[in-house]
């Protein structure tokens, strides 16, 4: 069953690459996404048997990430199909410099989407760290073409930076994994297999200096991919240049997968009683990321970059949450879900705004509420949700983390955390509100009859965000507790 989760999208990707007719390919994409989602939901009913001698298995954490990924992917697909149709229609003249450009072949785009899904699923379900590494690297390679969908120099630059920086980071992560092998090897020199399970059970005689080095490398490596400052440098470029569907998947799904890499290391560190050390690092990078995000959000003129930096901020929040330990971990895992849903919705809405206003400069967008009522409302919902105000999901998770911080007496952390959240809220609200409200300028593109999905999909996500804010399903809570348990 687990194998299916990976094989289906992968093979679908290969097929999609060769299918000529757009209709068939789109049907294939949608059906794959539906099947994938159905399967991953099924894993909640019957937990699947481990495959490949236990290399592939679903623990609570993996299942959460995997399901979240497939659901977001499903949403993204419905949006993407509509989006691709739109793309067919309009001529591609660049918003900023006005030159004409073409798009990549839709076939390869679709294929890469599917490979991307396969890779991310593999990340979520692989218990073998080296395999997990391979999967993460695979996500990079699969998603780079998505960023370079619009064939012009900016997107190329973004793709190049993404490739290079992430590859460097991932290489370091691999070094970290090797260090982990050394750190975990038994006193007699024989090393334990790189399975999370074994590593955790053998954690009691970890070699501390080696493990610390390993953790540092893994943190830097996967942190690069996850977008922790100061390794986040690829993130704003990639998110602002990629088509919004891709941005949504990058922010909503990919970052979580990278985060999973760090969580695996954290599991081991907790099991090895080295939590004090790893928590400190996570806290530092979490707060730094929030700070950097605050710095670059304030005065940010490009609203897609603004959303990208907000992703950096929320990755920071996740790191802080895990670093705090205890109830905060629960909050962090909950925040993974909330952030993914909210941010995905925001990027999809941003895509709609971009299509109508044909600019990424928030100063040139106004009156979205009157031009695109649904998207405008969702944009505001997203703004309030992502800045952590009730009654939306992120409030609950961020509050939980804050509560834990204060309960553990981490006053300094709590103060910095709240201050940065306030600053970011103030900085995001000004441009975002100005975009939604006011009267639309004259340059607004004449509205073509836009596909329903383009506003329905984000609307559904928005509703989900609201629901997560006023009702957390007990089954989910249980899964979250289970997942949080292994992380201390």
């Amino acid at each position, binding site marked *: 069953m687990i194998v299916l989760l990976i094989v289906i999208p992968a093979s679908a990707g290969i097929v999609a690459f060769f299918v000529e007719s757009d209709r068939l390919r789109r049907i294939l994409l949608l059906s794959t996404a539906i099947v994938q989602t159905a399967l991953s939901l099924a894993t909640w009913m019957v937990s699947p048997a481990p495959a490949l001698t236990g290399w592939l298995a679903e623990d609570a954490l993996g299942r959460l990430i995997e399901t979240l990924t497939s659901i977001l992917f499903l949403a993204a697909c419905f949006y993407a199909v509509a989006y691709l149709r739109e793309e067919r229609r309009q001529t591609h003249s660049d918003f900023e410099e006005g030159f004409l450009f073409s798009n990549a072949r839709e076939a390869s785009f679709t294929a890469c989407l599917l490979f991307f899904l396969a890779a991310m699923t593999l990340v979520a379900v692989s218990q*073998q760290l*080296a*395999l997990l*590494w*391979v999967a993460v*690297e*695979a996500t*990079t*390679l699969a998603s*780079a073409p998505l960023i*370079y969908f619009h064939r*012009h*120099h*900016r997107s*190329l*630059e*973004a*793709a*190049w*930076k993404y*490739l*290079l920086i992430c*590859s*460097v980071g991932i*290489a*370091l992560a*691999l*070094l970290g994994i*090797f*260090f982990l*092998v*050394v750190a975990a*090897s038994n*006193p007699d*020199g024989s*090393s334990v*297999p*790189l399975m999370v399970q074994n590593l955790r059970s053998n954690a009691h005689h970890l*070699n501390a*200096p*080696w493990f610390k*080095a390993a953790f540092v490398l893994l943190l830097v490596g996967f942190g690069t991919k996850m977008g922790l400052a100061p390794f986040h440098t690829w993130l*704003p*470029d990639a998110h*602002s*240049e990629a088509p919004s569907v891709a941005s949504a998947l990058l922010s909503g799904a990919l970052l979580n997968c990278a985060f999973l890499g760090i969580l695996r290391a954290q599991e081991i560190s907790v099991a090895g009683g080295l939590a004090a050390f790893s928590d400190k690092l996570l806290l530092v990078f979490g707060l730094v990321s929030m700070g950097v995000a605050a710095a*670059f959000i304030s*005065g*940010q*003129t490009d609203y897609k*970059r603004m959303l990208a930096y907000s992703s950096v901020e929320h990755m920071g929040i996740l790191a802080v949450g895990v670093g705090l330990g205890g109830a905060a971990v629960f909050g962090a895992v909950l925040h993974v879900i909330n952030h993914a849903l909210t941010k995905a919705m925001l990027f999809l809405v941003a895509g709609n705004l971009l299509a109508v206003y044909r600019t990424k400069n928030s100063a040139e967008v106004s009156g979205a509420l009157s031009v695109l009522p649904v998207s405008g409302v969702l944009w505001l919902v997203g703004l309030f949700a992502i800045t952590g105000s009730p009654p939306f999901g992120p409030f609950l998770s961020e509050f939980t983390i804050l509560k834990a911080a204060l309960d553990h007496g981490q006053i300094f952390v709590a103060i910095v955390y709240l201050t940065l959240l306030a600053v970011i809220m103030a900085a995001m609200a000004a441009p975002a509100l100005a975009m939604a409200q006011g009267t639309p300028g004259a340059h607004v593109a004449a509205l073509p009859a836009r596909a329903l999905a383009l506003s329905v999909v984000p609307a559904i996500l928005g509703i989900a965000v609201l629901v997560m804010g006023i009702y957390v399903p007990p089954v989910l809570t249980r899964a979250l507790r289970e997942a949080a348990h292994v992380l201390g």
Partner: protein
Amino acid sequence: MIQLINSILVLLVLTGFMLLSSSRLSACIRAIAIQGVLLGVLAISMQDGQLSAAGVLFPLSSAVVKGFVLPWLLFRAMREADTVREIEPLISYNLSIIAGAAALGVSLWLGHRLQLSPQPRSSLLVPAAFFTSLVGMIVIASRRKALTQVLGYLALENGVYAFGSAVALRLPILVELGILLDVFVGVFVMGIAIFHISREFDHIDTDKLEALADRLS
């Protein structure tokens, strides 16, 4: 045996310096190729005595890929981008050599701090591997040409791989292949990217790739 290993590691370090010091891309690519071969040999020589089929087959294949396939790819990319040498890097060659020396120092310190237990065949192993990785990063951070940066990335990978082949003998073959595949695909994709870059900007200087930034508005 130990002499062999040590000398391989020394050669690895030297190729690192070669990569840092030479301005001609062909020379750099060759340096990477040599590293690839060296790593293959290293991997085999590490498993003293008991040679298994897999234990030989895999290092050989990796040596082939790293020593010949990738260099060939890179040479093609070089020709397509018709560029032969890295002109004015961000920091001068002397400076990058000094940086390399510093990197060597750091690596030695690290090797001193992180003792392998039980003592591996060579105490040079950790420093050499780490040094190679650092060289890779220095190259990426100090050169302008996209191609050179790919070379840097390869050096980084080589360093990691050197360490891996030393300590992680028991890594399952599947994983090793996966890693190898990743490196290969990585370079392949980057090659494509370089092709696009050269077509877009009709050269591969990355300082044209600075449109995206958060400049003060």
